[in-house]
């Protein structure tokens, strides 16, 4: 720390604050869909930013100007992996607080829509880890292939294939759920 001059340190902290403000929702959304409940998603988000703060200087230096969102999500990804390993938990997906419909007296149409989305979330939760994560990054965080590739440590080509296969597998599982 003593190697930093005051201007560098102030600029670094301003940059971190910008990163925090820009991507708090991304990290929280990713965490929520990974662990499936708000309590653990909060812990995961908190730990992600605390760890990011610790390593921010080096990450910024090595990023060569590229966006740091994939790096941030990768931290959350690693922490989530530890979360499952340490607690022997499986991901769970709850719809209630996350998305869509919260009408006190839902209409039939809303009930149907809600059920449909619950099926999708269940299907996502049952995908292999890498496919599930890729879909969360693509659809909840609106990350492009390049960003997802960096977050997952894969090539862009491999990421494109991963997402394609994830969607296809999900589609097949949804079709299997449909009544004959």
């Amino acid at each position, binding site marked *: 720390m003593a190697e930093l001059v*005051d201007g560098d340190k102030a600029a670094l902290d301003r940059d971190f604050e910008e990163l*925090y403000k820009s991507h*708090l929702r991304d990290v*929280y959304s990713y965490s929520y869909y990974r662990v499936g409940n708000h309590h653990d998603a909060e812990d995961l*988000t908190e730990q992600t930013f605390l760890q990011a703060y610790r390593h921010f200087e080096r990450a910024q230096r090595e990023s060569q100007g590229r966006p740091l969102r994939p790096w941030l999500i990768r931290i959350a990804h690693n922490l989530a992996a530890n979360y499952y390993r340490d607690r022997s938990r499986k991901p769970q997906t709850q719809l209630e607080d996350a998305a*869509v419909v919260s009408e006190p007296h839902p209409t039939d149409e809303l009930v149907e829509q809600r059920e449909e989305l619950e099926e999708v979330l269940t299907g996502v939760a049952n995908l292999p880890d890498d496919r599930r994560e890729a879909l969360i990054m693509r659809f*909840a965080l609106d990350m492009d292939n390049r960003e997802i590739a960096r977050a997952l440590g894969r090539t862009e080509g491999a990421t494109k294939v991963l997402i394609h296969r994830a*969607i296809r597998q999900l589609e097949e599982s949804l079709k299997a759920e449909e009544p004959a």
Partner: protein
Amino acid sequence: MSDVERFDVERLLRSALVPVEPPVSLVDRLERRLTEKVDIAAEELADWELGAMRDPRNWGRTAAAGMVLAAAGGTLVLVRARQQHKKRQAGALKALEHSIEDVSSDIRKRLGR
């Protein structure tokens, strides 16, 4: 898989995987912890400073580190702005910065700079 089917699955995914807003309690807690980390870093530096002051070989480094401490005390400004109760601590930190600056100034005079 047809394009229509693919489109439908993607549409469903977009509807299901909506971004989730973090709760206010998390925002407050996280910002408090990040601010504390900055303060702790500054305090650790100050502790090192005061210890190092006893050794004349460190006087040069002390003056430089005092500048870093001043910077650390001013970090995460917007985060701090949300935390009114932190203002009192910031005031105490400022007093510490001033005392370090005074000492640094004294060192510079002694060294004839």
